């Protein structure tokens, strides 16, 4: 039987999601062709602000890569625009002259940014914030220009403004309304948001209407209706979107604001469907992502001739994706004659919560400062839950942790857990029960839940916990440390403590390893755990260490080594440089390279030369090879920089001196920046410090490696002493609870930031952690020096036997 031809116009989130749903219902029914005007495969537009803010890159927001299209036998034409639809002949034509017949046609043409029709809006330097091209333009402008104006104080405008701020620009936001995000927030929350963003350095011009964009070829400024003027060399318009309906109109489809569709996303012409931001359903055009998924489902069932499930509209929720600010709003949050509000306002901590009730039904909510209840409230709002028999204030502040569990329990299988990817509770439960997923990460890989913004992660964890019930702890924790045992990391550490075990062989023996001498995975791990539990008593086993740590140098592909001398805070002097240069000459070291952590790396040193190279360098080991503190990167700070507010070099040196040689579950990198420009890249380090006026922000769990992750704000502190205190306790808690080879970025996601904060909030716990940290640090001796001084080690490890 010949397959029917399905054509999709628009390679965006909504359209491709609809195709995914179609494939789920039937992957054999259609021969699928997709047309996209942009040159990329399908990406997650809502995460563009993260790209602009520097938290992620374009590759990471790709939803379906080229392989996906290939694997599903989909023909994809990118960079090609459909210019007309002939609904009689049932074919579409493109700007490159291609004519493609269809049996079923889906329009997912999305929307276009709304550009204000004011003079000058066509000048260079005026852009929307809608696609990768716009994002690139903003990134480029930031390298050349300093003053940015964002027109629009809504969600998108603020995300753009925060991004431009991160890029070092001076940013003013112009907004017509008297307060920010007026469509999602009430005046109180809007003002709180403004205060918080002003603290971050954003400027606001409220109740301002732009009259003209001024400049020659490129924009130079904005003049307003009230006669005032603002200088600007980049203008971002984020004032809204309009459904892209030109093509549909010309094809004779019924169009209002959007393409009019019924509950099955069908237009008024048979075999043509519309989905996403271009569609108008029951008078509503949705500009957010969650409805697209629900629409895609309804469309797929209808188009495949399966049992139809009507789409009946969506309740919307919004979360602002700006670091350091928690804002959430959902449903109908305005009060009037019928709808009354319950409000909690903690002015001291800047926390505001509002719940809107119609009679006894929850219909909307606004949260500022603490949005942790957002998911729970949103679910209640979606269900328009009746709360007549609940003490109403307790809905805002549920006692204990029970509220969350009951929420998941009460959700139906069709309820959506992950709004970004449209994953239901039922899908997650199935992944747990049928496919054996036992961690949030496995569920993520299996179902895509929490793959995008990650906001639903706690909810996914709750579903996991709830589904597994009594098995949860055992199963979730139980990841054997390697194939030699069935014991988990926690069990092994517990046994080491309980039985006072003191050698890796003893551990393997007593705990019944099925491999007498273990393997390359468990031996280094056991060596670390034993040293962590008993830092002063344990005798380190060099034969259980990976070569780099045993040799205190990095092995290279040809068997030579590279060596990094310690250079505290990245600061050096003429004497050290001269000595390094002499050693390079004498030992004919082929390459000297500056590392990403601001140190000098000497490459191509022969194994047998290592001890003499160290002796002649006469500098401490830089530990560039260990699961250990690597480097503390610094910017130049207050000594020389025009912007630096803090002594970043001094603090960096102090940190590096204090924590050098500390063994950790994985490598640890730090950075100290003296101001929010963060020239030391503090946002992507295991621990990053950013100087602010009168103190420091401490960011943790950042990572610049394969899994790029921006750090989370752990604390703001006032003094250098507090900074040291928090850092010591934080690092020790990581040492004590992380799996061996688990980077802080993965650890923090497993443990949860708020859990770690709650541990560190306790002064006594902090003191104890720091005490154990000091004990661990007390054993430090420079390994290079030790080797240089020990003839035996030099002979055993570094000498090669040569016979003629």
């Amino acid at each position, binding site marked *: 039987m010949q397959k029917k031809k399905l054509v999709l116009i628009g390679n965006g989130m909504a359209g491709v999601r609809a195709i995914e749903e179609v494939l789920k219902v039937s992957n054999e029914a259609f021969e699928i062709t997709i047309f996209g005007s942009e040159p990329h495969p399908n990406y997650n537009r809502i995460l563009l602000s993260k790209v602009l803010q520097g938290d992620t890159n374009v590759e990471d927001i790709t939803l379906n890569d080229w392989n996906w299209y290939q694997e599903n036998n989909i023909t994809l034409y990118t960079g090609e625009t459909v210019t007309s639809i002939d609904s009689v002949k049932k074919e579409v034509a493109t700007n490159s002259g291609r004519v493609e017949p269809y049996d079923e046609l889906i329009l997912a043409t999305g929307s276009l940014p709304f550009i204000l029709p004011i003079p000058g809006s066509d000048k260079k330097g005026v852009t929307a914030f809608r696609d990768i091209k716009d994002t690139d333009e903003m990134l480029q402008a930031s390298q050349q220009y300093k003053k940015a104006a964002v027109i629009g104080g809504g969600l998108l405008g603020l995300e753009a403004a925060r991004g431009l701020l991160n890029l070092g620009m001076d940013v003013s936001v112009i907004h017509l309304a008297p307060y920010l995000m007026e469509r999602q927030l009430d005046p109180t929350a809007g003002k709180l948001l403004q205060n918080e963003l002003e603290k971050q350095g954003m400027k606001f011009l409220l109740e301002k209407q732009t009259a003209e964009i001024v400049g020659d070829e490129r924009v130079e400024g904005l003049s307003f209706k009230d006669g005032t003027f603002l200088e600007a060399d980049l203008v971002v318009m984020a004032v809204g979107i309009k459904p892209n309906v030109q093509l549909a109109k010309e094809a004779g489809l019924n169009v209002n604001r959007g393409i009019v569709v019924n509950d099955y996303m069908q237009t008024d012409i048979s075999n043509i469907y519309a989905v996403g931001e271009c569609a108008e359903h029951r008078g509503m055009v949705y500009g957010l992502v969650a409805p697209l998924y629900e629409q895609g489902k309804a469309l797929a069932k209808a188009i495949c001739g399966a049992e139809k499930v009507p789409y009946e509209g969506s309740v919307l929720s919004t979360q602002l994706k700006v670091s350091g600010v928690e804002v959430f709003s959902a449903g109908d949050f305005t009060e009037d004659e019928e709808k009354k509000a319950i409000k909690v306002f903690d002015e001291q901590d800047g926390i505001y919560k509002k719940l809107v009730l119609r009679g006894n039904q929850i219909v909307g909510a606004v949260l500022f400062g603490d949005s942790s209840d957002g998911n729970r409230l949103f679910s209640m709002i979606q269900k328009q839950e009746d709360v007549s028999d609940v003490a109403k204030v307790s809905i805002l502040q549920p006692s204990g942790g029970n509220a969350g569990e009951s929420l998941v329990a009460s959700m139906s299988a069709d309820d959506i857990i992950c709004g970004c990817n449209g994953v239901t509770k039922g899908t997650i439960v199935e992944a747990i029960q049928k496919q054996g997923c036992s961690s949030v990460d496995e569920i993520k890989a299996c179902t895509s839940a929490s793959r995008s913004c990650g906001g639903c992660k706690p909810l996914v964890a709750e579903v996991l916990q709830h589904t597994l019930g009594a098995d949860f702890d055992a199963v979730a924790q139980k990841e054997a440390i390697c194939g030699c045992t069935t014991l988990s990391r926690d069990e092994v550490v517990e046994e080491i403590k309980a039985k006072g075990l003191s050698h890796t062989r003893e551990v393997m023996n007593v705990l019944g390893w099925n491999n007498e001498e273990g*393997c*390359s995975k468990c031996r280094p791990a056991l060596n670390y755990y034993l040293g962590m539990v008993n830092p002063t008593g344990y005798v380190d086993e060099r*034969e259980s260490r990976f070569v780099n740590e045993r040799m205190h140098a990095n*092995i290279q*592909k*040809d068997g030579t080594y590279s060596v990094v001398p310690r250079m505290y805070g990245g600061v050096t002097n003429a004497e050290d440089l001269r000595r390094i240069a002499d050693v390079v000459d004498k030992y004919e070291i082929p390459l000297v390279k500056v590392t990403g952590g601001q140190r000098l790396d000497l490459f191509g040193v022969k194994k047998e030369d290592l001890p003499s190279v160290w002796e002649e360098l006469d500098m401490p080991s830089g530990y560039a090879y260990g699961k250990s503190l690597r480097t503390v990167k610094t910017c130049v700070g207050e000594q020389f920089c025009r912007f630096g507010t803090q002594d970043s070099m001094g603090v960096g040196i102090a940190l590096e001196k204090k924590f050098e040689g500390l063994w950790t579950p994985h490598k640890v990198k730090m950075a100290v920046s003296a101001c929010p420009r963060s020239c030391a890249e503090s946002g992507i380090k295991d621990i990053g410090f950013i100087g602010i006026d009168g103190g420091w922000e401490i960011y943790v769990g950042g990572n610049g490696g394969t899994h790029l992750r921006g750090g989370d704000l752990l604390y703001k502190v006032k003094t250098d002493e507090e900074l040291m205190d928090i850092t010591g306790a934080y690092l020790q808690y990581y040492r004590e609870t992380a799996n061996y080879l688990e980077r802080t970025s993965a650890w923090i996601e497993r443990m949860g930031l708020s859990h770690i904060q709650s541990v560190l909030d306790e002064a006594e716990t902090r003191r104890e952690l720091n005490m154990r940290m000091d004990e661990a640090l007390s054993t430090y001796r420079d390994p290079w020096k030790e080797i240089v001084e020990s003839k035996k080690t030099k002979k055993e490890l570094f000498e090669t036997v040569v016979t003629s």
Partner: protein
Amino acid sequence: MVNKNIIKVCVGSIHDFPVSLGKTVKVNGKEIAVFKLSSGKIRAIENRCPHKGGVLSEGIVSGDSVFCPMHDWKICLHDGNVQEPDSGCVDTYEASVEGDLLYLLIEE
């Protein structure tokens, strides 16, 4: 018939070889990794992993196997075979201890 000429080379005192670690020995243009196992047995194999030439003398030793430090291939020290799921083989050499001295038997 192929004539093989085996030579016996002294590579030093047995005490200079650390337990459960490898040592690099260069003989007749060959580079050999020599291991003194925890059982006291001596093993000698070609010092290059068949995968990407990793230096096997620097690997972690477990029982009668060594894990290549480059990409963690597991190689049997007894017969030189690479363990599943990878495949390949390295040359092995006979070793003997006489008094305090360690000898390797090398084909010329």
